[in-house]
């Protein structure tokens, strides 16, 4: 794609945040680990800092512990809407007269509430609707006169910001940017203002942008449609059921008031974790954090999610027809990444589907030539809650989902029946270790790992310590999780099939 530099799609398909391991280079990591410092503000907000002085740049990563899994019926997609609104500015940034603008925004909310109420009434009054619409449009365009559009972006751009971005997943909402390292205080001022005094202006235009994003990522993408239907089938109760982008009907109806309420519930300082990696002084960072972020009042931590996905009662199989060549994906329910079986499950996915020497690549791609692409991964669609281990195949020309499914079943059965080989375990351990090292070279990826481990795993040290768990995995562990989870009853199959071929499948 040519449009680099904008928000990435929120629902990165087949995204795999591999959990890390470490073996032969423990020393290097011990050194890095000893350089990490943390500080918790009085209001509960946590800062993690790693000083690295190789180049005069710094990466910031703000991790909000809220994702689409926190959404209920009617407001699906709101975490992601909020992420977009967090770029619209504050009382100071993005406006030329907040006092005047603020009054208009309030009255827009009132008009919108009346309008949407009337539109959904049993007997809508069309004349009233038309009048409200006129009022809405005129107030909205008056409010827009006070907007300094994109001032938030522009301020960061002109300061030399790189990679200004944010992404919403099922588990989290993350805000990132890198700056030249003499602009730390500028970031402190911007980011604290953003979460202390946000103004969700230009809301209705942005809601339209997000609907375009849904069309872009799901409605015009056969694979996007498949994933949405597949997850909806695999998770009947847990909110991994719905896509991050949300249902179109919810996007059409979510109000600014909904977003403000959601913000108040989930963006308290004790639900935010920040990592700063680069050419900084940790003490300075902590002092400035106290000064800037310490202003945000504390509050209660949001209540954890209650709903747990119940045990699956039998195989599920869904089809999506589209103008597309076929594709097949199979998912097996597995526990959260915090479970002690997580490393064995990562090993299982690695042996089955990572790399050219993996089981299904060897069988389906190299030997049988019935697929051109295969893979296996955990953490689908998120890691924090019990999720799926998934395997997929993209059939080669002239071959079918059915052939691929059969060949994958054979390989999965072998994993259940026989212990994996030593060289396969070595491959898992060494490739995980190499990925970990490569991930640490980059400030921004390092910052992402530190916040993920702190929030989801409960301790940033896990960035380095997963090594022990990875290293301890045995062939018996892999076989044991295979026996437990790779069962017909526990699986969901999703197939993308060329339009009009349902009958043949």
């Amino acid at each position, binding site marked *: *794609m*040519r*449009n680099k*530099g*904008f928000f990435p799609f929120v629902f990165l398909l087949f995204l795999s945040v591999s959990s890390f391991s470490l073996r*032969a280079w423990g020393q*290097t990591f011990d050194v890095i680990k000893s350089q990490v410092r943390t500080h918790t503000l009085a209001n509960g907000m946590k800062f993690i800092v790693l000083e690295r*002085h190789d*180049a*005069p740049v710094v990466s910031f990563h703000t991790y909000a512990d809220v994702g689409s899994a926190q959404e209920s019926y009617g407001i699906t997609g709101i975490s992601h809407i909020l992420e977009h609104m967090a770029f619209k500015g504050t009382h*100071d940034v993005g406006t030329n007269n907040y006092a005047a603008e603020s009054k208009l925004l309030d009255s827009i909310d009132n008009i919108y509430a009346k309008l949407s109420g009337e539109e959904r009434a049993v007997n809508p009054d069309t004349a009233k609707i038309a009048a409200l619409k006129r009022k809405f449009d005129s107030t909205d365009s008056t409010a*827009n006169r006070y907007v300094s559009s*994109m001032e938030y972006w*522009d*301020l960061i*751009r*002109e300061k*030399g*910001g*790189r990679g200004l971005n944010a992404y919403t997943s099922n588990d989290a909402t993350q805000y990132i940017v890198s700056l*030249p*390292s*003499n*602009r730390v*205080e*500028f970031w402190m*001022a*911007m980011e604290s203002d953003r979460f*202390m005094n946000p103004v969700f202006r*230009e809301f*209705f*235009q*942005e809601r*339209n*942008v997000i609907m*375009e994003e849904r*069309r*872009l990522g799901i*409605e*015009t*993408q056969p694979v996007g449609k498949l994933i949405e239907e597949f997850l909806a089938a695999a998770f009947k109760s847990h909110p991994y059921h719905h896509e991050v982008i949300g249902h179109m009907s919810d996007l059409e109806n979510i109000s600014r008031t909904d977003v403000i309420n959601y913000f108040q519930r989930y963006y308290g300082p004790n639900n935010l974790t920040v990592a700063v990696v680069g050419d900084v002084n940790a003490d300075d960072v902590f*002092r400035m954090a106290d000064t800037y972020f310490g*202003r945000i009042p504390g509050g209660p931590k949001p209540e954890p999610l209650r709903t747990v996905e119940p045990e699956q009662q039998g195989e599920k199989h869904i089809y999506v027809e589209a*103008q*597309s060549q076929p594709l097949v994906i199979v998912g097996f329910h597995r526990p959260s990444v915090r479970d002690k079986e997580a490393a064995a499950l990562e090993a299982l996915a690695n042996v089955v589907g990572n790399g050219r*020497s993996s089981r299904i690549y*060897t069988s389906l791609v*190299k030997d049988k*030539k019935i697929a*051109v692409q295969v893979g296996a991964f955990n953490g689908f669609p998120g890691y924090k809650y019990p999720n799926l281990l998934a395997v997929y195949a993209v059939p*080669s*020309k002239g071959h079918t989902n059915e052939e691929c499914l059969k060949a994958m079943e054979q390989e999965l059965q072998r994993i259940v029946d026989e212990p994996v080989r030593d*060289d396969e375990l070595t*491959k898992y351990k*060494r*490739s995980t270790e*190499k990925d970990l*090292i*490569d991930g640490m*070279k980059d400030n921004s990826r390092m910052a992402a790992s530190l916040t993920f481990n702190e929030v989801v795993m409960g301790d940033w040290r896990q960035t380095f310590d997963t090594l022990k768990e990875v290293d301890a995995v045995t062939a018996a562990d892999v076989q044991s999780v295979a026996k437990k989870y790779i069962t017909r009853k526990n699986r969901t199959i999703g197939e993308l099939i060329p339009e009009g071929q349902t009958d043949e499948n």
Partner: protein
Amino acid sequence: MKTRKQQLRDFCPFEPAAIALLMIIALSESSFAQKAPKEITSFTPLNKVQMPDVKQVTLRNGMKVYMVEDHDYPTVDMRAMVRTGSIFDPADKVGLASITGTVLRTGGTTTQGGDEIDKTLETMGAYVETGIEQGSGYVAMSVLKGDVDKGVGILADILMHPAFAQDKIDLAKVELRSGISRRNDNIWEITGREFNSLIYGKSHPYSRYPEYATVDNITRDDITDFYEKYFHPNNIVLAVWGDFNSNEIQKRLETAFGKWPSAKTEYPERPQVNYQYRYTINLVQKPDVNQSHIQMGHIGGMISDPDYPALVVMNAILSNDRMFKVLRTKEGLTYAPWGYYGAEYNHPGVFNCGTQTKSQSTVHAIRLMLNEVNRMTEEPVTDEELQRAKDSYLNSFVFNFDSRSKIVTRLMTYAYYSYPLDFIDKLKEGVEKVTKGDVLRAAKAHLHPDELQILVVGNKNDFGEPLSSLGDVNEIDITIPPPPGEESPSAAPESMSKGKELFDKSMAACGGADAFQKIGSTRTRMTLLQQTERGEVEISDVATVIYPDRIHQAVSTPMGEMKIVVVGEKGWIVSPQGKMQMEESMRKEVFGNLVRDPIRFFSHADDHQAQFIGEEEFQGVKALDILVSCKDGAFHLYLDPSTNLPVGVSYQSSGLQGPANVEEAWSDFRETDGVRLPFKNVATVNGKTISRASIVEVEHNVEVDPKLFEEE
């Protein structure tokens, strides 16, 4: 909430206690008082970038190497560029470079199989990859420090002794063919590909794509020849970075590649880009989507252009300050709009603006984008826009040096394209000097807002305002040409037998097999009224044909006379400017006229297949549609249901104005030497007439001067 400063200002400033308090706070917090974002405008000087030592050597066999030590992490990485590319694929073997690049790695070496290499590398957590892209080949390696000998050993073995195992060639072909079969699944891919084809031309080396037929043509000999032609150490620039000692790694490389001799490569000429600026509207109809993908633009430029720094500034403003603000933030029409004057190192890039929007707002979005391109050339950018674009570039310049890999791979890239190694510093100096006048001048010089080619991929049935309100719409057919020998893969036997039956009936209606088989050559005089950019032009043409594969056209136009000759696989044009070889795409176009000549397909009926498609509307009346194909191409032939006479054809043309679906209506049937054929032919594209031809005289089995078909 207010900042603390503002709260203090709200205090009564004349109260002594308040003043004292203000002073105390100001003193005690002088180093870290809270400031509002916009109050922070000055910064301490940035710490200096510590430039690493880059060691540059040329190995004895000519391989250029750039090395940077980086002892922070225990890994060693290499990346090389190889002077080759898919631009050197022969026209009938598109895909050759791609397969060569893939199988170089997967096909193993003379001493170790590809699968064995996969296993060795993966159990080390390492990778070695190779590939060939449009204008270069690449080789990459990444290993943990302790495995560097093994890694370099494998890399050298692959480069010097590749086996190109047949099984892995087959696999690479399966992948390419599957890619072809899937190329219309994704709307992004369709848009990018078709737009590129509009700009460079359908079969141009910068915009061509493998087809089943071209993949089928590739043999193992082609692959080894391609490898042997281009893969020599003196054609390689290598970048190495990681935890090593430069002298040691140099010795390792000398040892590993020492026995690989340098050799001279005769490079084919690089493809020329001859772009004709023009305004066109193009549509790929995709009924299954509710959002249109739009791209518009024309040819772009080169990074070495003196205007490039001004264009870098212009791009930032056009994308961020104009397209993004107008289409996304203000109008809420789209998620990702952009506008970008593309430049390449050694050939013209593409000026490309694009976006996606719901079907209903397609034309509105296009108008907004056209307006922004136009505005760029008509008025200067604002002071704020200029300042922000330059600040953004200059303040973030340090990120070009924040990793060793960026620094060393940039040097490799500059060396590969023979750019000065300090090009990035020159570019920075250039950007520093850019003024508003420079941006306007560069925009005026390089953008042609009235001559943009516009492509929409979407569902025209849902466009609020029709696309035709912007001009004549050329609909592009993206049907994937079926593999040779599988022209109608889904054809039921009944449709094939019905097709054959109708084909034979039509042949009988036109005079019968015997009459056609007697014809070996023809000479036809005709007049043509052709629509051109200058209006309708009258052309007279004498076409001499020797069936099945020779055609000579002597054309006279108000602009001069021309001879257009195709002999099988070869074609040339003789004009007042002299003789020139025809491009393959043009040869195919000319040859296509012969393929669709009823005398040819009826006299060589056995070489043709005919599939009955159904009863269709053709030129407003019901006709029987049969798909006629032979090894040289395929077209739809329409028969009058009552007389079985062929009343026309339709086919995909890759014409000079870009691809189009052409319909020819045939009429005025007359009999000559026992065959009944049309004397009038009206060609239309999307209902718009592009030419009318009338035959003045036809002679069969004429004496032909053999010199007509000889190149002098």
